[in-house]
């Protein structure tokens, strides 16, 4: 539909016409702002914490442990220079492991979610899979943040009440 619209615009005399082919889905999946009635409904991106501690493949877990001290319950996403999520080090592994590198102890290719996922859907997933955190990324795999199951459930419950 987008390409046909672009060609139609050219036929109407517009000389500088572009097609954003991936469209609205790509935009909202990246957690970018939108306008409209749905913009006021909280989703996973709203709940995700963006200030999460990350580490690199070669980081020693002892160093990660020191950085993550302010939030000892959270896992640590393993990212590259482009903040692409390569793995996830669970919080219990961070507590127990000292000299290993993140690469040695991470869960490779963790499940990730887009920020436009509805709270109801993610709440159900985290409950069904007994998962404590959701890793939120753009469609390209770039880290946006982490959402805890507690926060998701609380916001979902608030939403249901309102």
């Amino acid at each position, binding site marked *: 539909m987008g390409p046909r*619209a*672009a060609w139609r*615009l050219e036929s109407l005399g517009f000389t500088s*016409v572009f*097609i*954003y082919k991936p469209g*609205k889905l*790509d935009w909202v999946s990246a957690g970018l*702002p939108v306008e409209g009635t749905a913009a006021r409904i909280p989703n996973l991106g709203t709940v995700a914490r963006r200030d999460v501690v990350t580490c690199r493949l070669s980081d020693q877990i002892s160093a990660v442990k020191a950085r993550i001290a302010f939030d000892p319950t959270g896992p640590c996403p393993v990212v590259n220079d482009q903040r692409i999520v390569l793995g996830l080090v669970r919080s219990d592994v961070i507590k127990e492991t000292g000299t290993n590198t993140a690469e040695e102890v991470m869960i490779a290719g963790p499940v990730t979610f887009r920020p436009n996922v509805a709270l109801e859907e993610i709440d159900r997933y985290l409950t069904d899979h007994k998962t404590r955190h959701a890793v939120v990324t753009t469609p390209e795999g770039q880290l946006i943040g982490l959402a805890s199951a507690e926060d998701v459930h609380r916001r979902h419950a608030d939403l249901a009440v309102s």
Partner: protein
Amino acid sequence: MPTVIDRSRVREMLEGGAQLVEVLSRAEYDEEHLPGAISIPLRELDRTTTSQLDKTRPVISYCYDSQ
């Protein structure tokens, strides 16, 4: 010929003054649209509805996804 662009280029072009046109239905636009986009459903694209656009500035059209 219209040029296909990605998200980062859309953001750059919007900062430079490009115009965004969502060609989905009005209901879909009302529910959610990109900031600053105007709604002209594909079937309504004609000389009258596009008269609100500035022909001297780039126009970016989009729908829901690449399908």
